[in-house]
């Protein structure tokens, strides 16, 4: 791992790395889709039998797809990515998580929210496309919503701390630092892979995050290759640092608020979260953790390492 950087190694090594990279690319697949749609070959056959293979197929017209609803979402993702002016993307080695580097200000959903539009490029040609079903991040309320901390956020259903493990289906861990104490509320979101979110209110130990009245958010979810994963849309002024939590790879994302997208088992956006502030991402086995705090990088790592 800690060996000579790739660019200094012989051609044969670089070529081997490229061959190996093929296994790590999210190649499109031919189906059949998990939703039960036909595979690509069957669609091609059906189109031939419908008389489309005359050599005069008008590109962009009358294309079949697996399911109209799914297609709309796929298109939405593509347009979203185009608008985000992708500069690169990387798998992080954390189950269920992927980073997409782009510019959230370029997304039509990004205006008017917390995210400061930084030199927003306008997607003129994409503007002519039919209105995509982009996930709409909920505007961040200026005042705390009534109820326990986290009530105003799309976190799912409130649950009791004593039923966390049973409802999540995995062991939910908590910071052991007595200054932080137990969370003030807990939530489970059945629409996003039973993601569990624990919320702490603000106090002396936990200054407010970008969410009013919220001192810390801790999200835990089971992310696997097949069970959906998160994408994050990051702006140019958001930085990602590789850090260590308990000796394992973790990422500290800070700077401008950024946005999460959930991608479901079939690979499209199903749901969205709001803008989030500084966040630490790490994994332990199949569970991926996300800690949102304004305490800074070192304190966030300390909290993460204290979790039991």
């Amino acid at each position, binding site marked *: 791992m800690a060996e000579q950087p790739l660019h200094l190694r012989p051609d044969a090594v670089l070529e081997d790395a490229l*061959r190996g990279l093929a296994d790590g690319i999210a190649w499109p697949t031919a189906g059949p889709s998990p939703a039960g749609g036909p595979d690509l070959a069957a669609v091609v056959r059906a189109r031939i*039998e419908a008389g489309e293979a005359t050599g005069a*197929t008008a590109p962009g017209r009358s294309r079949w797809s697996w399911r109209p609803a799914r297609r709309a979402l796929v298109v939405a993702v593509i347009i979203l990515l185009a608008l985000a002016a992708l*500069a690169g993307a990387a798998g992080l080695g954390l189950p269920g998580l992927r980073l997409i580097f782009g510019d959230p200000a370029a997304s039509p959903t990004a205006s008017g929210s917390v995210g400061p539009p930084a030199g927003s490029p306008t997607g003129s040609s994409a503007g002519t496309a039919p209105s995509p079903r982009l996930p709409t991040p909920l505007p961040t309320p200026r005042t705390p919503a009534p109820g326990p901390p986290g009530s105003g956020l799309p976190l799912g259903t409130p649950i009791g701390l004593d039923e966390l493990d049973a409802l999540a289906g995995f062991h939910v861990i908590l910071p052991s630092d007595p200054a932080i104490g137990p969370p003030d509320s807990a939530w489970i979101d059945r629409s996003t892979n039973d993601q569990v979110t624990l919320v702490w209110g603000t106090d002396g130990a936990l200054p407010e995050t970008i969410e009013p009245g919220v001192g810390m958010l801790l999200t835990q979810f089971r992310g696997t290759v097949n069970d959906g994963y998160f994408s994050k849309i990051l702006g140019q002024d958001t930085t990602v640092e590789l850090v260590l939590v308990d000796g394992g790879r973790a990422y500290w994302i800070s700077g401008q608020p950024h946005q999460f997208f959930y991608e479901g088992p079939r690979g499209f956006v199903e749901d969205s979260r709001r803008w989030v502030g500084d966040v630490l991402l790490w994994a332990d086995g199949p569970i991926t953790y996300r800690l949102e705090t304004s305490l800074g990088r070192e304190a966030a790592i300390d909290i993460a390492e204290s979790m039991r």
Partner: protein
Amino acid sequence: MIDRARAGDVAAYESLVRRYQDVALRTAYFVAPEADAADAVQDAFLKAYAALPRFRQGAPLRPWLLRIVANEARNRRRSADRRAGLALRASIASPHDDAAPSPEAEVIAGETRGLLLAALGRLRDEEREVIGARYFLGLSEAETAEALAIPTGTVKSRTSRALGRLRVTLEALDGGPADG
């Protein structure tokens, strides 16, 4: 099978599509990562069906098909000024995957993979195409030449130039995991 398909046997052609659809999807994806690969491949297979009577009997089918796929995918590229860079997306490699990683995959750790993907994203389209054909699909130089519609000599020179540019970009990127 090809002869039957050429004679209008749609079921035979469906079998051919099924045999080549994965390699076709990969080709469409690395040629135009921003486009819908499945759409491009569907249309390419329709065009190939219509063009089958012109396919030279006895010639290898795969590069001939991939040439049509690559063309179809190129037509779906966004204009260069609409793209700040281009991203092949990494799959999520779970450490608990059942399948053992290939020896080559073990060579590159996660961060390196991210770097390599980012560096690939900064190559020119034609350079990414030869890298994809040679290393992702494992095509020979001759097959690559046929699929990308370029002379074999150009495959060699373009591959070597692409590797050189990858090195330069990797070196530039190596300062940090993501200083976007």
